[in-house]
């Protein structure tokens, strides 16, 4: 058994920042990650980091933009914390050597981004995430923080009191990918989940193969609710064949979208008469799909993004990386022809419910980064607002887990007297466990809730048995088949346009996936670097996460931010200024709601129409 004060699961931008903060606060901290840190998907971020750094800008403007972008489903205390802390935390990156793009006077450059009232997106070429990730890893090396890389975390060691608010997290169970050994990691002060997005629940996505929602699924099964999972951002400009992202920076610099008739449709068809291509992402994604559905798409599939008029010099200076991506992954030279683009799954606004200090309702369990929901992004994330979230809330979670006092949070977590139960919606199938795949609670087999070590040992034993079972089973279904079915169901029915019937169909298909998963087996007999085993476990996590996305999409009968419902195409503030929460109770999802907090430090954000 390994033992540390703070254990951070995941070493992308959020996890690395949390580890550095915990180290700064004096804790003995370790990072446990299924990928080596520099392989994390933060490295793919292109556009930049929003922070109010310059004269004429301030955090209040940034907060206002973020609230408006969120379609008034962001919680004001979270949004204000983000926008207040982002400037200092961004400058800190510069002090750690981050190679930001520069102005004539040597200061860091900022550029316009969609939905922002001021050009506050701080960038390093079109590869901001790569630099952020490497700079953060450099700090981890500098501080000598212990990294267990290529260790796959399977489960949390949490107590199992009836009320999740009374539970406590004592550590994690992980296996060493290289050897297959399952081990326990005891966390004396806290566990921070920073496992990134769940994009692999969809077929066409800008997310990496490793973005499988593992942290979501582990926290969910341990009793922490998942919040606002229905809010999935579809990025308007991904390459059709692979899902590789073409940064919003292209439109920020002046790139233009055309349909097959050469019309600049964002204006000419009235989707966004003021902001055009720079309207919020959900607006642009729906506009593109509408163009395609109405027969104005190129090859009935996509639209064109043209940046040729920006000129070679400017493109090479600011968007060079885009040229490589278009060439390598679509065979298109962005200097001489327009690039084909279509919407692709990109970001999960929802996630593990946490407060401003990154803590879930379970004592000692934290989450930060894309896997968490504070909520900063509400119904829709603005471009450039995820990277600051990683550093601001990664840092706070690390500090708090290490025992630093950050004041009492205003955001509440878990099931309590301020929530309202879901009672209206009829489900097409029984969601939740289909038997074998449930992760048994520690005391479930008769034991009295043990001490931290006892719990951890039991969890390790469970995990070993589970791995043995999967490996020893000789035939059955393989994960790839189930995963593909799941991804197709989500992309077909829980995409940009959602209908009640479609989402119900998805839930039925997800149920089928669960049932097929009962018979899943791992063909590769080797304990050495068994990616077959890893993907089999990930597929189980994807099923749980996909189900919460579909459930959220079904119950929320309104159109807010990225979530569009055919049956009620208005933002229904009277009924829906509230978060959807789904928690796992005895193997079944329980759905409830918590009101959104629109009262900020010294003002209230009044919901306004979101027009661009």
């Amino acid at each position: 058994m390994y033992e540390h004060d703070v254990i951070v699961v995941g070493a992308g931008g959020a996890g690395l920042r949390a580890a550095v903060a915990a180290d700064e606060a004096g804790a003995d901290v370790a990072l446990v990650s299924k990928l080596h840190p520099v392989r994390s998907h933060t490295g793919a971020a292109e556009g930049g980091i929003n922070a109010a750094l310059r004269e004429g800008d301030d955090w209040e403007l940034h907060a206002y933009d973020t609230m408006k972008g969120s379609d008034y489903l962001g919680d004001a205390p979270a949004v204000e914390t983000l926008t207040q802390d982002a400037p200092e935390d961004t400058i800190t990156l510069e002090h750690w050597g981050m190679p930001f793009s520069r102005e004539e006077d040597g200061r860091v450059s900022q550029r316009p981004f969609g939905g922002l009232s001021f050009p506050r997106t701080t960038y390093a070429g079109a590869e901001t995430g790569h630099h952020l990730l490497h700079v953060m890893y450099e700090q981890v090396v500098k501080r000598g923080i212990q990294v267990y890389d290529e260790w796959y975390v399977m489960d949390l060691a949490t107590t199992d009191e009836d009320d999740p608010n009374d539970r406590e997290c004592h550590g994690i169970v992980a296996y060493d990918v290289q050897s297959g050994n399952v081990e326990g990691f005891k966390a004396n002060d806290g566990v921070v989940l920073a496992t990134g997005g769940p994009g692999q629940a969809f077929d066409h996505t800008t997310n990496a193969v490793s973005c499988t929602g593992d942290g979501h699924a582990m926290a969910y099964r341990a009793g922490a609710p998942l919040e606002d999972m229905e809010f999935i951002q579809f990025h308007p400009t991904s390459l059709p064949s692979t899902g590789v992202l073409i940064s919003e920076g292209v439109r920020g610099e002046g790139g233009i979208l055309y349909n097959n008739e050469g019309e600049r449709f964002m204006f000419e068809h009235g989707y966004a008469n003021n902001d055009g291509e720079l309207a919020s992402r959900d607006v642009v994604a729906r506009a593109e799909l509408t163009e395609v559905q109405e027969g104005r798409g190129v090859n009935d599939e996509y639209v064109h993004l043209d940046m040729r008029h920006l000129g070679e010099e400017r493109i090479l200076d600011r968007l060079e990386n885009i040229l490589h991506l278009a060439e390598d992954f679509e065979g298109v030279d962005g200097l001489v022809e327009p690039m084909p683009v279509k919407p692709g799954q990109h970001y999960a606004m929802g996630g593990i419910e946490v407060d401003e200090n990154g803590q879930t309702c379970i004592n000692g369990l934290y989450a930060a980064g894309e896997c968490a929901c504070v909520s900063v992004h509400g119904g829709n994330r603005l471009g450039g607002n995820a990277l600051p979230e990683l550093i601001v809330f990664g840092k706070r979670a690390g500090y708090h887990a290490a025992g630093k006092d950050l004041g009492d949070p205003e955001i509440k977590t878990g099931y309590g007297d301020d929530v309202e139960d879901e009672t209206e919606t009829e489900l097409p199938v029984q969601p939740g466990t289909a038997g074998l795949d449930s992760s048994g609670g520690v005391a479930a087999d008769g034991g009295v809730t043990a001490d931290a070590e006892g719990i951890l040992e039991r969890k390790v034993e469970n995990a070993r048995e589970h791995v043995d079972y999967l490996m020893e089973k000789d035939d059955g279904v393989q994960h790839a088949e189930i995963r593909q079915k799941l991804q197709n169901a989500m992309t077909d029915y829980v995409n940009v346009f959602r209908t009640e019937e479609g989402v119900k169909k998805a839930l039925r298909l997800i149920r089928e996936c669960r049932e097929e998963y009962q018979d899943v087996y791992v063909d590769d007999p080797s304990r050495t670097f068994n990616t077959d085993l890893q993907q089999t476990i990930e597929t189980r996590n994807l099923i749980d996460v996909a189900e919460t996305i579909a459930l959220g999409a079904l119950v929320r009968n309104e159109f807010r931010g990225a979530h569009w419902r055919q049956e009620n195409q208005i933002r229904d503030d009277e009924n829906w200024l509230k978060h959807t929460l789904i928690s796992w109770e005895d193997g079944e999802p329980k759905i409830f709601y918590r009101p959104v907090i629109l009262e900020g430090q010294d003002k209230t954000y009044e919901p306004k129409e979101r027009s661009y």
Partner: protein
Amino acid sequence: MSTQQQEPEQPESQEAPEDPEMRGAESPVDEREKAGGDIDQTTADRSELEGETILIKVFRYDPEVADKQEPRFDEFHVPFEKGMTVLDAVMYARDNYDSSLTFRHSCRQAVCGSDAFFVNGKQRLGCKTQMADLEHPVRIEPLPHQEVVKDLVVDMDHFYDQMHTVEPYFQSEDTPDASDLEEQRQSRENREKVKMSTRCIWCGACMSSCNIAAGDNEYLGPAAINKAYRFAMDDREDADIKEHRLRILEQEHGVWRCQTQFSCTEVCPKDIPLTEHIQELKREAVKKNLKFW
């Protein structure tokens, strides 16, 4: 085991075909000396592949599994699709033919650096290499000069160790107070100067292609030297730190080992002018009058 010592066995085909070409195959290392195996195809040629299957021969090894303890090549017929990369091809083979086929991959877009393989005798990034640009059949092997863990997965620890040796983090004594929101100034020219060097994705292709690194296990290698360049040339670091960095670099297993063969520069998927960077550091070391080896 290491690809340096092992001679792969004859192919054990997944789908029967005998391939005389693979008999008594050379080890990846010998093969490396040969030409890259590219064919300069026009777009017209590329589209001819549409609807065809391409044969890939993939190196297999698993220390734990009886019939994989002796390295071998497996053959897979993969249906070609426009835009198909080497990574797509091995993923197809894994998901449809053999789920135990093992390789690292994640981002699919040339930023995570996980999938550097030895493809047709050259170090390449799987996700960035178009199948249509390669001579067929396509031979896919783990990176030479590194221990093979399993199939295409190599042990990266030595590579990481070398990266860590050069103190790969920014060092500055007197940065302004962050709460004042004052950044350090840097000229555009200076940012431009370090730009290419900051693009490294730690894929290890350069190190694997380097003869010197193969012969001298302690040689820092192109990627680590480039990492040091990234800091040494950054004006935000002070002169005495730069000197400290040059001292690390001019040690016995440092820059002077490089014999300017350009193999690293040729394989770097991020087009980093590695050899130039190493040469420039040698000149800096001379200017500073540091000791030669």
